[in-house]
């Protein structure tokens, strides 16, 4: 059942140096209980996409066109009043830095109870009970003790768990998680991934997991959307995308990770650097770095459905290798 349908979303920043099309015609959809991995390198527009869904884009940026249909209602049309009623309640966000959510000078119980009471009229006692449950759900062992602590008494991993617990307080339908484990150590990251996985399976919570790390989401997300220079350039079921990427950029990204490669051998590398949004090449934005580029690519490729459930924005996708992968 579709929970969120984003259609042709465009969020632009009107800067002194020109218009930065940070999000430029992004479309995807998400079912209840589903995890979408939104991946791409820095500056590709992942965070701005997340902020747009929550109506949190500040000037000089604004949503210039498109639809964000959440549970049947268009949030772009509904504007700030509608976004405000949903934000923190039905759609919550967690950030790379949990201190964006946590207040350093308030005890955890104080800030969590306030959060509950901001949207709901229930007794303080039942609010506190709700907080305790939320902490337990993210794998915090002694919630009562934690509730009486201040954020500084926690490690980075524990702070992030508390931030996730706060996001869960109103039992949202959707959580947008922007690089939530990027700053954490691998063993702590694995703990959080395991809690999140359980949470989505048990509660039907949907998630958009934003990250630059394709390997991390590959084991977590149901669907992947890969961004490059403000556009989604490839989407599909996670396993299929990892196994046989269609877009030359996705293929290059996977190949440049030192994994399963011959020890000490030179890594496959994508030449060049990510382009500035203020100075994008004509046609396909990936053209100057693409080994398959030809004259056709001076036009802008559409996001075309190339296979069932798979789409890529490319005139010369890697369909051939896919057949080989299937055959072997």
């Amino acid at each position, binding site marked *: 059942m579709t929970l969120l349908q984003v259609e042709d979303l465009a969020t632009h920043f009107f800067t002194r140096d020109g218009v930065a099309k940070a999000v430029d015609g992004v479309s995807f959809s998400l079912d209840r209980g589903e995890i979408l991995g939104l991946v791409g390198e820095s500056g590709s527009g992942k965070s701005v996409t997340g902020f747009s869904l929550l109506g949190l884009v500040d000037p000089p940026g604004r949503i210039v066109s498109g639809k964000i249909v959440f549970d049947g209602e268009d949030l772009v049309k509904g504007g700030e009043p509608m976004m405000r009623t949903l934000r923190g309640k039905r759609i919550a966000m967690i950030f790379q830095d949990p201190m964006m959510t946590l207040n350093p000078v308030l005890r955890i119980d104080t800030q969590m109870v306030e959060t509950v009471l901001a949207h709901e009229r229930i007794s303080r006692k039942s609010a506190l009970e709700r907080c305790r449950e939320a902490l337990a759900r993210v794998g915090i062992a002694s919630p009562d003790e934690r509730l009486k602590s201040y954020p500084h008494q926690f490690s980075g991993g524990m702070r992030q768990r508390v931030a996730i617990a706060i996001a869960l307080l109103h039992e949202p339908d959707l959580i947008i998680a922007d690089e939530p484990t990027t700053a954490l150590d691998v063993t702590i990251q694995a703990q959080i991934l395991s809690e999140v996985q359980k949470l989505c399976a048990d509660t039907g919570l949907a998630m958009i997991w934003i990250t630059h790390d394709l390997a991390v989401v*590959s084991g977590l997300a149901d669907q992947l959307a890969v961004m490059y220079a403000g556009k989604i350039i490839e989407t599909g079921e996670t396993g299929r995308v990892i196994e046989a990427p269609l877009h030359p950029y996705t293929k290059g990204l996977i190949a440049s990770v030192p994994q399963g490669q011959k020890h000490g051998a030179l890594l496959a590398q994508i030449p060049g650097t990510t382009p500035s949004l203020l100075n994008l090449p004509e046609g396909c934005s990936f053209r100057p770095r693409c080994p398959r580029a030809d004259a056709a690519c001076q036009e802008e490729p559409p996001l075309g459905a190339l296979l069932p459930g798979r789409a890529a924005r490319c005139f010369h996708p890697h369909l051939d290798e896919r057949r080989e992968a299937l055959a072997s």
Partner: protein
Amino acid sequence: MTPILEIDAVSKRFVKELDVAERTARFLGSKIEPLAIHAVDGVSLSIGRGEVLGLVGESGCGKSTLGRMVAGLTTPSEGHIRFRDADVASLTGAAAREAALKIQMVFQDPMSSLNPRLRVDEIVGEAPRVHGIVPRKETAAYVDDILSRCGLDPSVRRRYPHQFSGGQRARIGIARALAVKPDFIVCDESVAALDVSIQAQVLNLFMRLREELNLTYLFISHDLGVVEHISDRIAVMYLGRLVELGTAEDLMARPNHPYTQALVAEIPTFETKKKQYSAIKGEIPSPMNPPPGCHFHPRCPHAHPRCKAERPTLREVAPGRFSACHLNDEGAASTAA
């Protein structure tokens, strides 16, 4: 393997300053005091000429502190670091300067380690000119040569650091280190801030330069995947101590120490099916108040009474493989292997 560098029972202690949250809390009346930290605790290692030794471990385990001591940027509280048989800390005069040039460090954030007011040719050319490594007249040609070796077009020599992308700044940082003709480079999270596609370019550059210039690296990273790829041997640290050491492929294939086993199991890898994350429990303990005995015991699935009481020593458990875990002398090594 002739060692070029020997780290001999080196320790480093700090008094920890308070962070913002802690200062705020103290201001509001909490009893928080600065504490002593044993950042590096009795580490011994030797690195062979031309070798790449990877140093991994989670944040705060002492990797950077060890790297800074090797590069001579800070001195050990105890123990000795010998570079080509000479104790680095006790050298003086010309010998000290020579040693300081021969070991260079490449940092994580090139922006904060490059002077924003200097142009690229000044950043790269200054030290070799000052130290008389190349005659003044030849500096320009020398700088151009190093820039091209590092994959930068020499025509960028008059630009400032802010005019470059992250990947190019990383290359400038490397060029600056190479300019004084070092034998040994400490790479501290040198690719951590880079996007994957750029990270691959810079890793390739490190590998190529090593071949061309016969360099030795101490390659520090929290990313075991990166370290595995580039290193000949890998050293694993946990809370200031060295817990395992071995050749890269063997250590990854058969980690001995339970902590290394957890690290290897949890490196994010490409999956084509949903992964069942089954993380080891517990948090990384505070280095200010480390658990007694084996520092890893509160998180270790194999912990037993001895682990709380006695610090395991690092010893050879197979040829060329060292591990600091009690399981190895209790005939139970098979459970750890």
